[in-house]
């Protein structure tokens, strides 16, 4: 091992040899002669460099003072908050920057112009000395021998077995990170249910006002939540993350409706989940002319005329449709919950 290090470049035969006076090689001319800097030769230049450095340090002092002015001077004066914040932030930044750059650049200039710039050479040492390796190996052999780790196979193997299974509880210890206390199946099943149910009104997000079918014109789009969501005391965002819906109206002739969904729209008014089936961003962009829905996060594009089928981008399946109808007061209501889980796909979605 040791002899491969540094050593004979011809060792493996795989590398063109170079360096110290081999056959047909240039020889290393050694460190180039030191060239003196202007500050080495001219005392006036050295003095000038000293003054420059002092000015840099003084800039630092000014920067520190500027910080105090920005912090206390502008602090709680009566200026409008936006302006005050901008001014204070800029001046604190400028002050701190001056304070730091003055010190930093000053010290570096000191090192470059006035401290000795003679390059020095130092020897590298063997990383792994052979005698040390030998001694270490002896010690390890002794330790293994004295512990009886190799001889007492029964003890060793039961210990290895015990150690191997002992950490497994640590993994299961985290089961209650989910705070619902539900069993595994019920836990996953939550993803299948939203607040939508028969008769739940479609209301505007965020105002909560119900929507009449006659309000929905061709080309318009409504951001919709289920009625009662705003009034939830617990888990409002959790419900909202699943229940948000986009409501749009198309000429009925442009909708290509698949069998079984004929009654899910109200005269060309359709409701689709707003949560992207890719990784769950809200789909916020509706192109009125093409009837495409576009997710701003990863550009998945869904075609409203084809029941929100994926026509571009990384999403893997169509947006779930919410079956809707009109209640006796003329307001839009859900016929039922979504027929499939909304949002990103997952293992158990099946």
């Amino acid at each position, binding site marked *: 091992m040791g002899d491969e290090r540094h050593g004979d470049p011809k060792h493996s035969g795989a590398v063109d040899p170079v360096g110290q006076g081999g056959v047909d090689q240039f020889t290393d*001319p050694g460190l180039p002669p030191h060239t003196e800097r202007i500050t080495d030769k001219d005392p006036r230049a050295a003095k000038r460099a000293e003054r420059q450095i002092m000015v840099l340090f003084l800039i630092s002092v000014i920067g520190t003072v500027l910080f105090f002015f920005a912090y206390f001077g502008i602090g709680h004066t009566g200026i409008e908050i936006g302006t005050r914040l901008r001014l204070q932030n800029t001046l604190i*930044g*400028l002050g701190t920057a001056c304070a730091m750059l003055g010190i930093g650049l000053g010290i570096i200039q000191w*090192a470059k112009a006035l401290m000795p710039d003679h390059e020095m050479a130092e020897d590298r040492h063997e990383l792994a000395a052979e005698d040390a390796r030998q001694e270490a190996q002896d010690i390890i052999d002794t330790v293994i021998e004295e512990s009886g780790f190799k001889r007492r196979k029964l003890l060793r193997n039961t210990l290895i077995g015990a150690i191997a299974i002992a950490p497994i509880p640590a993994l299961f210890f985290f089961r209650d990170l989910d705070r619902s206390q539900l069993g595994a199946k019920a836990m*996953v099943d939550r993803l299948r249910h939203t607040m939508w149910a028969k008769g739940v009104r479609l209301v505007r997000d965020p105002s909560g006002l119900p929507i009449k079918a006659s309000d929905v014109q061709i080309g318009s789009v409504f951001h919709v939540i289920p009625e009662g969501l705003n009034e939830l005391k617990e888990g409002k965002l959790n419900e909202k993350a699943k229940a948000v819906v986009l409501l749009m109206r198309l000429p009925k002739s442009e909708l290509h409706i698949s069998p079984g969904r004929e009654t899910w729209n109200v005269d060309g008014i359709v409701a689709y989940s707003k949560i992207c089936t890719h990784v769950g961003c809200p789909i916020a962009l509706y192109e009125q002319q093409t009837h495409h829905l576009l997710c*701003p996060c990863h550009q998945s594009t869904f075609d409203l005329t084809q029941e929100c089928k994926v026509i571009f981008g990384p999403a893997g*399946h169509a947006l779930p449709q919410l079956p809707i109808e009109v209640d006796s007061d003329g307001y839009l209501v859900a016929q039922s919950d979504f027929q499939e889980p909304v949002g990103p796909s997952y*293992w158990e979605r*099946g």
Partner: protein
Amino acid sequence: MAQTTNEYTPATSAGRIANFVNQRTGAAGLVKEFGRKIFPDHWSFMFGEVALYSFIILLLSGTFLTFFFDPSMAETHYDGSYVPLRGVEMSVAYQSALSITFDVRGGLFMRQVHHWAALLFVAGMSVHMLRVFFTGAFRRPRELNWVVGGVLLIMGMAAGFTGYSLPDDLLSGNGLRIIDGVIKAIPVVGTYISFFLFGGEFPGNAIIGRLYVLHILLVPAIILALVVVHLMMVVTHKHTQYPGPGRTERNVVGFPVGPVYAAKAGGFFFVVFGAIALFAGFFQINPIWFFGPYDPSPVSAGTQPDWYIGWVDGALRLMPGVLHNFSFERVVGFPWGENVFVFNVLLPALGPALLILTLLFTWPWIERWFTKDDREHHILDRPRNAPFRTATGVAGIVAYCSLWCAASSDLIATHFHVALNDVTYWLRAAFILGPFIAFWITRRVCLSLQRKDRETVLHGRETGQVIMSPEGGYSEKHQPLDAYKRWRLVSFETPVYLPAQPDADGKISKQERRRAKWAKFFLEDRVSPVTPAELEAAHSHRAMESHEHGPEIER
């Protein structure tokens, strides 16, 4: 038994303090070891320092922020001094982030220092790793430190991501939403991991507190420990140096720690601090008050992740979910029922990252395998002198940057008035074909630069003096290089393609054949350094006829 072991009595007060410390700690040995230790000097060695200093600034500014930040997701109504959000329902975490911004003097500055320093931290590490890769500094004995560096990069990204999510504003919540979607795509356990991470269904009310613990305790502790290991290994190995006259594999040439190197490196800390302060003072970053509190319904178009997460987000964007009628979401029937493999999320989220990180971590061993070069290297390669490695690195950069650009595909489309779909198609092509084209071009460029070096050695440097001969011909006068400049251009090694070698039994194993195939691919085209004989021949050649011809390439 009282006994003095040291009869030295210092004359000055500084000496007395030093002596006091030394007698109780033995610090003199440390001073002896490090006081005049030699460090090579080169601008490209600063990138690691940038990362280190940014990390220190992150610790300082982060500690300040913890004094004011409250990671609770409890609901509250804002009543602070930012009028547009007054009365808005939000989490306590978001409220306290707003309070740091508007009601703590210098709070906004500290937030911006922290964010800019985080961007610089990962950038510093990335560029440092590129420097290490392209100069071959990862070779024996530094392979393990290369691996530690790779882990540091990943931990840096983890620190960034956990921190980005803390303010609980609209954008960071949306980032978490994407993470939730990606986690749910993991087969078998993904749904559970998502529930465990969020404490139930997304978004729940646990995630911010959990990320906070990871962000301020676990991740920085790991980073700090790894930084210590990283630096200790640098001390053990001593720093690498660029090739040049007087620099050998057995020495290290540079400036002593005291005073020059300590002054330069110490001064540089203040420069990095100053630069970050300048950024934080003048350039707004993550203005959370514009975004509003997290709400699963609204999203703003044109949002971007922090730069170092961009390549993963870009990969998510480039992957097609459905091709014609083939969906990458595969529903597979099992005896117990149907399950879903979400390949359209899994492949881009894990594929490129696994590929790039695996290559990155194993490259020192891959290179050693096909070159059969297992010697210690303390002299760095100039990137042109290792065309195979430089080309591989550039191919990796092109793959990375294609993904990275894709994270801004929507902004590219809107800014340059091109179709979003076309941007995606082109970037898909760039990600798949780009690395191969980049490899080929880079290798040719490296070989050409090497030939240019050869020509400079053989024919000298162009002086710009054009001479007209009595016959009316023009030629430029060339000035031979001096020994020092010449040494820079001739003192390199290039691995030679070593055909498959028989083993001890005289048989050529399958693995050896495979190695030889790769070695041939990587090493076949090479340019050797000029030898004195060639230089001599060039001189006499020039003496005979004045026209020049190009150097030979060995095959």
